[in-house]
């Protein structure tokens, strides 16, 4: 059928739906829903890791294969350093830029390496905002409790307290650098309510929050003349004779040569795993989100946390085909947008946590109340025109310019017609286990941002990622810089790799792939 004909039910039921309130699930009902429908509970998608620091723990097959993968580097590699630095930051997104800027500000010699361009990341796409408890009726404690609840009580308390306590100072830092957060009439920061949060706490720059922050941080990295190594992918870390981290080896993606960097500390800020397309899901992630940091740390002996849980963002685009998997910001639901099934009914409190909302969308579709497309996809409606009805004409255009333009390019006016959505692979809830300085159990190896784990428990709350990046970028940068003055550069070896390979042999060998993946294999080989 023509899409407009199918959309009629959304328009027809709008007024009736506006009068409804949908209660949140009780804890028992919520758990039952998630266990039945959330992709994290699809047992056949998981297998135990066969060796290494997380031996016998389960994760998705795609990630397990990479963690057990072989390194591109052989034992006889030439380890004469091409560069020597105090702090080596790997990754050019939000966490990487924050780490580099703080380490540089603390007086360390810093190098920032990234496999794509400076700034290419998921951070740049963050639309929903950044949770910081700045409102008078809010507090860091409430932020802590909301996050803990959203993470199903599995969050690391120390990391979480560090994040919520540091939040307001981060906002101040960003404002001083020129980030233009939305304001109230009295000049105070405007806060929006996010899914799973009891108080309005989201700082926003319309629906360009991540882009605005990244434009500024990237510019600042350039202004501070921090040494850059772009289009160089980290392919192995280096360790000294005590197993402490001492640098990294990169592959220059232009000339394919290895580049060896000696560093007193390494901060991995390599982001997430969306481009592994776990369980066949489309993803909202950027081109380089291939989990490189997880593989590199794992071979060094760093322990991973919560790597069996991933976030499937409730609203990934399903139609048009060109936008499949791309994000429809949660901001729409924050502002009151309804989720509507094929019968014109709401079926979940739209501001429940992401895992609950995603599970309920999957339930609707599995039980035959979804809307299908000819390409075999299925989804439910997100009633975007409701925002203009509710808050006055022009609301969508004013608050969601990015999303308006994204769909307008394909002839869809989201202020007039609802959009079809289905969960999209969005975020790895877990990652490399870190302490409050952002350091792993491998000394001088830090991990910051999405690549790290523990903070978000089993489900990250909307808006906590941008804050995570800034807080742990800062903590890792300051700790690494603070250490640099009083320590010597460690020896450069790949002894950890020899250990890893020996361990693999004992447990039935490495998987048949080279990891990290670096870039997804989208290029068609056969004709």
């Amino acid at each position, binding site marked *: 059928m023509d899409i407009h004909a199918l959309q009629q039910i959304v328009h027809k039921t709008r007024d009736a739906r506006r009068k409804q309130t949908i209660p949140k699930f009780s804890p028992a009902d919520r758990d039952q829903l998630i266990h039945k429908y959330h992709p994290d509970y699809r047992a056949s998608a998981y297998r135990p890791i066969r060796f290494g620091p997380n031996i016998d723990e389960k994760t998705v097959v795609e990630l397990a294969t990479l963690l057990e993968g072989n390194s591109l580097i052989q034992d006889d590699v030439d380890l004469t350093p091409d560069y020597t630095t105090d702090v080596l930051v790997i990754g050019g997104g939000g966490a990487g830029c924050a780490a580099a800027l703080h380490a540089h500000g603390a007086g360390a010699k810093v190098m920032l390496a990234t496999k794509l361009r400076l700034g290419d990341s998921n951070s740049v796409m963050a639309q929903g905002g950044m949770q910081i408890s700045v409102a008078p009726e809010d507090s860091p404690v409430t932020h802590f409790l909301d996050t803990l609840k959203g993470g199903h009580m599995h969050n690391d308390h120390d990391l979480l307290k560090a994040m919520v306590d540091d939040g307001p100072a981060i906002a101040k830092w960003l*404002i001083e650098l020129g980030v233009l957060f939305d304001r109230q009439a009295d*000049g105070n920061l405007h806060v929006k309510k996010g899914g799973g949060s009891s108080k309005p706490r989201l700082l926003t*720059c319309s629906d360009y929050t991540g882009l605005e922050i990244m*434009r500024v941080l990237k510019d600042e990295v350039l202004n501070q003349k921090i040494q850059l190594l772009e289009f160089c992918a980290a392919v192995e870390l280096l360790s000294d004779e005590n197993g402490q981290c001492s640098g990294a080896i990169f592959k220059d993606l232009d000339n394919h040569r290895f580049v060896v960097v000696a560093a007193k500390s390494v901060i991995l800020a390599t982001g997430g795993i969306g481009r592994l397309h776990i369980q066949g899901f489309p993803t909202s992630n950027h081109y380089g989100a291939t989990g490189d940091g997880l593989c590199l740390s794992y071979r060094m002996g760093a322990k991973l946390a919560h790597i069996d849980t991933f976030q499937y963002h409730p609203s990934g685009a399903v139609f048009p*085909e060109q936008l499949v998997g791309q994000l429809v910001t949660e901001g729409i639901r924050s502002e009151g947008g309804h989720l509507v099934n094929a019968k014109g009914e709401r079926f979940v409190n739209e501001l429940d946590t992401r895992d609950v909302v995603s599970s309920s969308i999957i339930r609707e579709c599995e039980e035959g109340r979804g809307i299908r497309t000819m390409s075999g996809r299925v989804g439910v409606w997100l009633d975007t025109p409701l925002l203009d009805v509710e808050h006055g004409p022009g609301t969508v255009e004013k608050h969601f310019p990015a999303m308006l333009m994204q769909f307008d390019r394909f002839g869809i006016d989201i202020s007039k017609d609802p959009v079809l959505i289905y969960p999209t692979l969005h975020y790895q809830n877990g990652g490399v286990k870190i302490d409050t300085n952002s350091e792993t159990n491998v000394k001088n190896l830090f991990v910051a941002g999405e690549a790290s784990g523990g903070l978000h428990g089993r489900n990250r709350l909307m808006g906590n990622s941008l804050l995570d990046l800034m807080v742990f970028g800062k903590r890792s940068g300051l700790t690494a810089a603070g250490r640099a003055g009083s320590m010597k550069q460690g020896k450069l070896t790949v002894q950890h790799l020899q250990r890893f390979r020996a361990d693999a042999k004992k447990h039935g060998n490495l998987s048949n792939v080279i990891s990290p993946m670096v870039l997804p294999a989208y290029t068609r080989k056969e*004709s």
Partner: protein
Amino acid sequence: MGVSPALPLMLHPLTGLRNMAQEDTNVIDQPEVMKPRMVSIEISGKKYDVPEGITVIKALWYTGQEVVRGAGCLGGFCGACATYYRTKDDPKVRTCLACQMAVQDGMSFTIMPPFPARKATYDIQTLKDPKQDLFNLYPEAPLCRNCNACTEACPQKIDVREGVWKAVFGDFKSVSEMFMDCVMCGMCTPVCIADIAPNLVALYVSRAQGAHFTEKPLGLDVRIKEIQDGRFNDEWKKILAMNEKELADHCATVK
């Protein structure tokens, strides 16, 4: 590894099946997906046939090209895939983001290589007179000759020319609002006959607006001081001493 979405065709991710319980009327028409028609396009001057309607970036993958430069967020936010294109029989060369544009028959395109624009360096926080400093940092900014090529080149539909003039006349607030959509693709720069890099000018202006001409949020300083002074310490002490059960019960009371 995983499913290659270069030509996405995904069945239901959990069941691997189409849901047959539904009425067949409840399906959105997508004739272009059901019967993909091959169209002829030109990539950097070379002819290829690709399925109609796939994005420009997917056309690169489809034709066997390795993409390192020219792809970034794949969501229309990073400007890495800025592209020049022309449609069949139209002399007008337009711009787009390759991840946000569908190919059509007779289309010809080239990804824009990184353009060597000059970025001024500055310490945003210590600027004394940011509106005057603009002319030291970007002396070419006032030399705009009003040709409007920058505005026409912008894939984000920003009125770039207007923005440059507003910057020069010191209306930093308007510039910062107009350029909130800017993905820094830099398509406005190579077309400028006065050698202005409008996106970089606007970035400077927006940062100056934020750092120097925007009201300080007083509530934020209050909150920072409250944290420093330990206003929440008693509450923290109570919460961090709770066992798992107590904490879960306490969380349930937060509404």
